């Protein structure tokens, strides 16, 4: 059970949050211009890596804000949290 540092509320128990999958997948501005393959790349393909991963999280039972998290999926270590629209503090 993680202890997550919501960028708006501070440290809260994981049970207040829900995970929203991989971060930084921008919805294409002009979907109609895309080929089936390009659209499928956006729609279906996710990295699901073992190691440091960029993820979206929602403080669903708190401030309801979405934010990003850098988490190592191999040991669940959270390296950073940052607001939507901000650049990842870690590469």
């Amino acid at each position, binding site marked *: *059970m993680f*202890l997550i540092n919501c960028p708006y509320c501070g440290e809260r128990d994981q049970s207040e949050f829900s995970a929203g999958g991989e971060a930084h997948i921008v919805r294409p501005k002009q979907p*109609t211009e895309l080929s089936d393959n390009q659209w499928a790349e956006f729609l279906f393909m996710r990295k699901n890596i073992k190691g440091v991963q960029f993820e*979206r999280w929602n403080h669903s039972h708190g401030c309801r804000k*979405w934010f990003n998290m850098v988490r190592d999926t191999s*040991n669940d270590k959270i390296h950073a949290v940052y607001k*939507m*629209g901000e650049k990842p503090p870690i590469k």
Partner: protein
Amino acid sequence: MSKNLRITNNRFIDQTSKISFKFDGKTLYGFKGDTLASALLANNIHLVGRSFKYHRPRGIMTCGSEEPNAIVQLGKDPSMTEPNTRATEIELYEGLEASSQNCWPSVNFDIGAINNFFSPLIPAAFYYKTFMWPANFWKLYEYFIRKSAGLGKSPSQPDKDIYDHRYLHCDVLVVGGGISGIMAAKTAAKNNLNTVLMDDKNTLGGTTLFQQNECFKINNSYSNEWIKKEIKTLNSFKNLTIKTRTSLAAYHSYNYLLARENLTDHLDLNEKKDKIRQRLWKIRAKKVIIATGAMERPLIFNNNDRPGIILSSSIKKYIDYYGVKCGKKISLFTNNDSAYETAISLNNSGVSVNSVVDIRDKTNSLIVKQAEKLGIKIHWKSSVVNTNGYKKINSIEIMKLSDDNTATVGKKIIEECDCLGISGGWTPRVHLFTQSGGKLKFRDEDNVFLPDKSELDQISIGSCNGDFELDEVIKNSVKLTNNFLKVNNNDYENLEIISSKEIDKKNIWLLPSDIPLGKTKPFLDFQNDSTANDVKLALREGFKSIEHVKRYTTTGMATDQGKLSNMHALGIIAETAGVKMGELGTTTFRPPYTPLTFGVIVGRNVGEFFDITRKTPMHDWHVDKKAEFENVGQWKRAWYYPIDNENMHEAVQRESKAARDSAGILDASTLGKIDIQGSDVSEFLNRVYTNAWSKLEIGKCRYGLMLNEDGMVYDDGVTTRLSENHYLMTTTTGGAANVLSKLEDYLQTEWPELDVYLTSVTDHYGTVSICGPNSKKILSKVIPDLDLSDKEFPHMSFKNALIDNIKCRVMRISFTGELSYEINIQSSYAKSVWEKCFDAGKKFNITPYGTETMHLLRAEKGFIIAGQDTDGTMTPVDLQMDWIISKKKYDFIGKRSLYRSDTIREDRKQLVGLLTEDPNEILEEGAQIVGKTNKQPTEMLGHVTSSYFSPNLNKSIALAVIRNGKKLKGQKMFVPMKNKTISVTITDTVFLDKENKRLNA
């Protein structure tokens, strides 16, 4: 009680308070402070169960949570009886009743024991191999296996006990109240840290509490006297919480831990009543100090499982703590120094020790010298090669070990005994450390896995960290604790410690015997009955991974998770396969450390607290009218309103007819309602719905379909423009929360530039829906000054109104195809408005109808229910709703997916109507549809999604999804049922009023 098995000992057991209890129906006596195990031993009862596979007699083997054999059924009450409890952990109380498990008809005469004689025929994985074929015989096998293996009986009635959950936050959590834990907790508390100390026993002190031996002294006191003083000083700290009888069950990431506190299990039956039985602590600790100690290992030799064979350190605790002699003529068998502590304790209490059999050549440590001084006989470089006695050990066979330790040599000595203490060294309790994700390292010198790397803010101290000698335990625990807490507690700096040092170490995982290996029974896992031979067989059969060997032989898979057996299993695998133990790794220890009751896991979330129940403002009215309710998500919705013993079908037929013939009234309060405000709402709606929204005028309503990005229908509902920048969206009852989350997600992450604000107002408004040709007349009585003319108030429009000076919103929208109005009013007024409408409608036979009738009415019109006629694989095109997809809009959620190669396939499943050949035949929802019946197997082309008997059309109607259904209109299909095949014809989805005339009736 056999008095001669108790020594006079008033230190821990109150020998003045006699307690009566029942075991296997027999009334016995013990004392306050006993465990069930110590009381049984005091009554000379060793035989407490039968083994899993061979049904061999098994006795109490330990004094703690690692007990594999003394697993008993506790209590007789059908709601409170508890299987698989460990007699070594149950504190004795007045009225306790326990019985043996896994034996039939009784522990002394067990029919399954015949398996023991057939044991050469029951090798590893016997059950897997034998009961594989034929598959349909499994019913028989299962019955047989379950009956003969039965591990206890679960209660048959709901649990009457109360359980509780609580949160706990602390700076430092110390797990384990032995000598290391006590020193660590005191150090933390002294430095003003908010500290919690937990121990699963009823008292602190661990094994030091009863260690009264010349070889272990601190500042000239016996170590037990020293620790007692330390425990006393703990009480002075206000910032230290001590929790005994509290077992740490699970250690998760970010120092989140779960512990179970036993509050009443030790109380007399009549004192337990109305109290919380167990509490689950949900702990978040800044720092964790694990001080869980070590457990003694057994030795693996032929027939090492007879009742009366007990871990040496447990015999010591039974004599020193409980004052109970495990036997009158006790032999000990060891590979290390600790058995000598037991020998000395027994000797000091007047119990004769036959001899100590030691596999080592000879050793001269302080404690061994003391034992020799007391005249205790030692068989050096020897092994026990066999034991005798069926229901209780009566002798052991001792032989010398060969120089290479692979065989036994010389003359066999037979030694009579009624108890054998065994000690195979010590295993640090690293279970919690590994649960938390910590990695282990292997120490070759004494074959132990030790805590190595951890990501969390934690340390292990004391013997769980590999320190087994008193002076090292103290020295290292103090140093590690001070460093970890960044403090400097010098209380323990200049202690004068006497501690016997183990000089010689020797270990043989599987001890040799004079009998060939295949003919011996060296048990590894006592509860699951697997032997060293089974593990060797598994290796011969090609199993290599420890995890596979474990599952194949079931070693370590019983309720004790192999606490005693795992190390030997690993040792034998490593030896046989010729690999190093450190490289082999270990199996995973999973939470909970000891089994938890279901009661403590669910806590208070039972009965009415199991889930939230949401009720509409009109709920009580429905109850008064004897409505049947259905659960829709967490909502209770009126399903139908039976009158005079009507069944559901009859009630729904009546309600459906009334709604179309005159007037019906429906509680629509559960529909999701989202208040949307901002200057960009119309643009927002354009992006989330498939149709166009920019031209929606103020005061108008529009139906919208929402897709997922994959093009599949997600939700639908009507949205009303209340004013320039103010809208009210409705969603399906079940989809409300998800729709709001999804819309928030897009707003916050994809379109933060839009000026749009979403607020859930589902609970804020009650919704009364009146439909039917007379609905206008009824509404005009309720709100006389509202102009209801079609010109002023046409279909799909909205008006603000007042009812008795209370503001409300009236929408003219319809989900039934009838002329229909919805009144939305603040929840607290909704019931009175409902009643007002009902009274006004009496003249017109206004009929309350429930969700079932609502579903029927909309099916007559071919309106879909998202979630019933759709299942996340239907596009609007599949639903034949092409009209709702805007061709002009550049983009909306899911648009691009509507022309992916898969979604433009013509042979997708599509929504159609079905009419049965026999108009009285009602199809079953979910029934499969096929095109042919003359050939088998035949392809399933689709299934029925909605089906009703329509009283308004006087025939059965259904909606279905069928492959390529759009093009098959007019074709015959078949619905094969268990005892008949129903012929159907594919039709249009709209069955009634295709021209929508009734909307303006």
